[in-house]
């Protein structure tokens, strides 16, 4: 057991701290794709604080994969209010997919603008009748000369209103078994025949959209992998999404805010944290979080040391992390009582309504990215070796 990163990383950490100090004043306020955002993103790439291991010829920094350096960057940026590198499904899911499975032309065309934040992507996976059973999707893709013609409907498409491109799963081999009939295509969002309709969520925001696709034509070369291999291509990226949904270090920051809140809010003049039952709930959540942080260290260690198996440790992150976060936000609401129900711009509102907003948002994450019930299937089947449910005929 050795939790030190080692002296060779001390210099690197000071370098990151210096960069953060020099850029303390930077604040980004413009919309997505605004020049100031693109410039900041490029500055982070140039210094190796973002897209660190993406090759230079595709617009990355071109460094070696070094998990500890990534961790140091994340730790130091988390402590400071300076803008973090952009995320999003293009950066987190599409770029890794293209790097491992894309053609040279695709890598050249898409990775650089995506990393720079000039090209926003949305994900066309779920359909109204294909949620947990994603592989049953029915949106059709037919090759007509040198073009794919796409017809169907997608749902839960994040940032579709802003996106220039969509990575989309369509059924191109209708006669093949369901997992072998899907292809992974890259669809420009300014193509004719795309109708976007925002979905208003329980939070009041509209992060998602429905996409109605009618005779949308895209070039035949806009396919990643071969025809019928789309399921494998997509699965390579779902792993990236799951890992990023519930980082216990982010939850730690939130727990600190909850402790502050419980020391500030009062009931009949008594601090909420002094009420034994509230305090016990807080400490229970802290105990669970500490377990998840230890689990995260084990995963980190398995990435830098050969022969350490952390399969099960990884499978549980999304399930445990989203449930804990939802409960943490819920405790904050209980600590505020009636005040905790205030929303939008009501008098007496605390923290801009963030606790309610996040409480609901994390319920969304419990459902999204593979519902937590699907996560339990994955854990029981892939980590514990339990059998799948018998197939229903015709499904």
């Amino acid at each position, binding site marked *: *057991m*050795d*939790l*030190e*990163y*080692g002296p060779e990383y001390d210099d690197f950490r000071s370098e990151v701290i210096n960069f953060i100090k020099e850029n303390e004043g930077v604040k980004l306020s413009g919309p997505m794709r605004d020049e100031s955002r693109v410039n900041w993103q490029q500055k982070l790439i140039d210094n190796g604080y973002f897209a660190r291991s993406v090759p230079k010829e595709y617009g990355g920094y071109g460094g070696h994969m070094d998990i*500890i350096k990534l961790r140091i960057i994340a730790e130091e940026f988390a402590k400071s209010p300076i803008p973090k590198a952009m995320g999003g499904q293009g950066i987190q899911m599409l770029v890794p997919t293209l790097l491992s499975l894309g053609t040279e032309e695709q890598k050249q065309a898409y990775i650089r603008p995506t990393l720079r934040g000039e090209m926003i992507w949305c994900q066309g996976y779920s359909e109204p009748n294909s949620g947990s059973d994603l592989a049953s999707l029915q949106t059709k893709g037919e090759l007509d000369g040198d073009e794919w013609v796409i017809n169907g409907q997608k749902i839960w498409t994040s940032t579709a209103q802003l996106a220039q491109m969509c990575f989309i799963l369509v059924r191109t081999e209708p006669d093949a078994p369901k997992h072998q009939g899907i292809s992974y295509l890259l669809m420009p969002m300014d193509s004719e025949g795309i109708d976007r309709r925002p979905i208003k969520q329980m939070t009041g925001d509209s992060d998602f959209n429905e996409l109605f696709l009618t005779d949308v034509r895209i070039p035949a070369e806009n396919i990643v992998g071969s025809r019928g291999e789309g399921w494998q291509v997509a699965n390579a990226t779902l792993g990236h999404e799951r890992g990023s949904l519930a980082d216990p270090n982010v939850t730690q920051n939130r727990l600190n805010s909850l*402790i502050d809140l419980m*020391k500030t809010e009062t009931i009949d003049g008594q601090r909420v*944290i*002094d009420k*034994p039952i509230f*305090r*016990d709930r*807080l*400490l*229970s959540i*802290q*105990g*669970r979080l*500490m*377990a*998840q*942080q*230890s*689990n995260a*260290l*084990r995963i*980190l*260690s398995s990435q*830098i*040391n050969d022969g*350490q198996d952390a399969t*099960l*440790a990884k499978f*549980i992150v999304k*399930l*445990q992390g989203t449930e804990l976060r939802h409960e943490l936000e819920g405790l904050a609401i209980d600590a505020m009582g009636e005040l905790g129900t205030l929303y939008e711009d009501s008098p007496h509102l605390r923290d801009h309504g963030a606790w309610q907003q996040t409480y609901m948002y994390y319920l969304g994450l419990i459902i999204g990215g593979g519902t937590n*019930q699907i*996560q*339990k*299937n994955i*854990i*029981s*089947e892939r*980590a*514990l*070796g*339990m*059998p*799948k*449910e*018998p197939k229903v005929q015709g499904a």
Partner: protein
Amino acid sequence: MYFGLSEEQKSLEENISKFLSDNAPLDTIKAVADGEEAKADDIHKGIIELGLSGLMVPESYGGLGLNMLFATVVSSALGAGTAPVPYAGAYVMAPIAITLAGDEDQKNEWLPKIAGGEKVIGVGLSEFVGAREDAGIEFDKGKVSGRSLFLIDGKNADAYLLANKSGELFLIDSSSKGITVTELVTVDKTRTSIELTLDKVDATLLPGSSDLSVIEKVLDAGRLMLSADTVGASQVMLDKAVAYSLERKQFGRLIGSFQAVKHMCAEMAAELEPCHSMIWHAAHSQDSSTEDARLMACQTKAHVSEVGKQISKTSTEVHGGMGFTDELGLHYWFKRIGLNRQLLGSPELIREEAGKLQGFDQ
């Protein structure tokens, strides 16, 4: 950076597991539970031969001088095997207390004998953590009087390590005059528990223990041992549940193919897997005396106890009616986890302590 067990620690765990599966199978555990103490003594001798009694004794006193992470590995393996042997009190808490707070004579008298497996010291800190039945001991002019309940490893011990309410630690010889021993029968028949009634019994103070940090370290160590024992026992309960679900058929299917059962097992695994990392992490924090070492020990005991409770219930349910029988013997693990949960502070008590450690009461 490496987070996990070393090769040496892994092979220690394997050796203990192998020893227990060869020498303490379920039939033996049942015999011990039914009162055949000689069988427990044989297993005890075996773990002494494996060197476990001397693990925490410094090398200069004839021990191996290893650290809490090693002790955690041992305790987890003993919990997995529901081993009917002394450990947490006799071979971890007692040597740590004497090493930290004993004078040279006390160290020379006790430590080599602990390491050699010649002497067992029972440990009674229950009254310091939270006295029940108005128990408690007082020290006056070299004598202790009062009562102490739920001594860990106290049955047939050669000496007792006790604490008064201010956290000072005392050693008394079990053959001294004025001691009445009452056996307490808990649900867990794989370990013993006793009550001491003391009437002006000769006692020696561990001089360093006027520093409160000594009893805190001893408590942290004990709590981590109980946590590790629960994690080991819980892992076996989960493994047994999965294995049973892959044998048992109903409605023409393995019950392990029903989502209801799969999700029970997935939930157990999702809760338990981080607990392995948590006990290692907490032990490492003790070994490197980090600032949050006490908080981690408290939160680990509290959290692992909660997870253990859930797993001991769920695993029994997965086994259906068989889970409830004596024949299957699953209840030995259930009860072991149940005793660990209450010893040295139940989760609610320990979380209260964890709150104070962070100044939540200020």
